[in-house]
């Protein structure tokens, strides 16, 4: 085997004349082309991520919704939640930016892959955080509607009349948990697929280097 690799090495080094040759102008044109690297993709996806979740918050903060929240007496809770939410979003954007800047193709392969995976980790954490906030918001809203909303009062009243209050609450809680869980799983699957396609190879390569250390 040793000899064969040596043979290959000799042949390899004699091969230069068969390689393509690009001219100065051809190379010059290339330096202004857009990168299609995975890092670029992750950057764009992350931007969409930040805009999307921040957008959802803004959409649900219109004056009408605010009035409804006040009527349902969950306004204060929601405001605190929103406040925390924006703070954390800013923190994530800062962390993402910092990690993204660290990506350098002049690092060693292992370090480069680690930094790329770290950027992705920040985005994943951001998404998880948003999902949790989303779930909490949903649960508080359901609670608010049922306790303070006009239709909610009717529903509860009729449930009371029928005399199966415990069953009613049990159903409400079960349905909200199942609904939230299904939503979370769907979104989780979407990300798994998205980053799975993008980063599968990178992860494999990273683990290939990483497992040597064990």
């Amino acid at each position, binding site marked *: *085997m*040793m000899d*064969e*690799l040596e*043979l*290959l*090495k000799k*042949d*390899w*080094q004699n*091969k*230069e004349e*068969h*390689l*393509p*040759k*690009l*001219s*100065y102008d051809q*190379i*010059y044109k*290339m*330096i202004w*082309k*857009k*990168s*299609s*690297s*995975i*890092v670029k*993709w992750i950057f764009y996806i992350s931007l969409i991520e930040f805009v999307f979740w921040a957008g959802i918050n803004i959409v649900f903060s219109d004056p009408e919704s605010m009035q409804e929240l006040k009527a349902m007496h969950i306004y204060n809770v929601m405001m605190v939640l929103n406040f925390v939410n924006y703070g954390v979003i800013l923190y994530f954007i800062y962390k993402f930016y910092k990690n993204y800047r660290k990506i*350098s*193709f*002049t*690092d*060693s*392969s*292992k*370090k*480069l*892959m680690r930094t*790329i995976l770290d950027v992705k980790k920040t985005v994943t954490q951001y998404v998880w955080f948003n999902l949790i906030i989303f779930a909490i918001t949903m649960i508080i809203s359901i609670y608010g509607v049922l306790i303070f909303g006009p239709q909610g009062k009717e529903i509860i009243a009729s449930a009371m009349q029928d005399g199966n209050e415990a069953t009613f609450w049990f159903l409400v809680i079960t349905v909200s948990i199942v609904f939230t869980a299904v939503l979370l799983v769907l979104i989780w699957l979407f990300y798994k697929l998205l980053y799975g396609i*993008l980063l599968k*190879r*990178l992860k*494999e*390569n990273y683990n*290939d*280097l990483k497992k*040597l*250390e064990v």
Partner: protein
Amino acid sequence: MNKELEHRFVTELENNQNIVHKVCTLYTNDRDSHNDLFQEITIQLWKAYPKFRGDAKFSTWMYRVALNTAITLYRKSKKRVQTQDYDSVIFKIKTDEYDDTEEKQLKLMYDAVKQLGDIDKALVFLYLEDKDYAEISETLGITEVNARVKMNRVKNKLRTILNP
């Protein structure tokens, strides 16, 4: 100043383009992918160039950026199409210079190397380029001992591919 930087970069890359072509040859199977990867490496080299201090050789620095791009680049085609036509152009072996068995052996070897994973390929590439273990370990970000261990495993892998 910027024009000067551009000129210096393009000239250096033009003179050292073989390194990039060789990486592209190992990591791609057809001409289009070869050109795509070449372009992506060029972009990454250019982006990193302002930080290139010149304390390392331009070529040494190129090896790192080129391999890193090949290893981390996103490629759509998951299936590796075995198109030998392009390989045989690049890896053309002059028949009259070698005897037949050696030619066959080389062909098998090149095919075997192409079947390796991205990291293993990087290792073989640096080995073929006559880099020592110190440089290999530094480029990949592993210890020298681990680079040797990994190289031995790659040799074993090649052996298995060649003698199934």
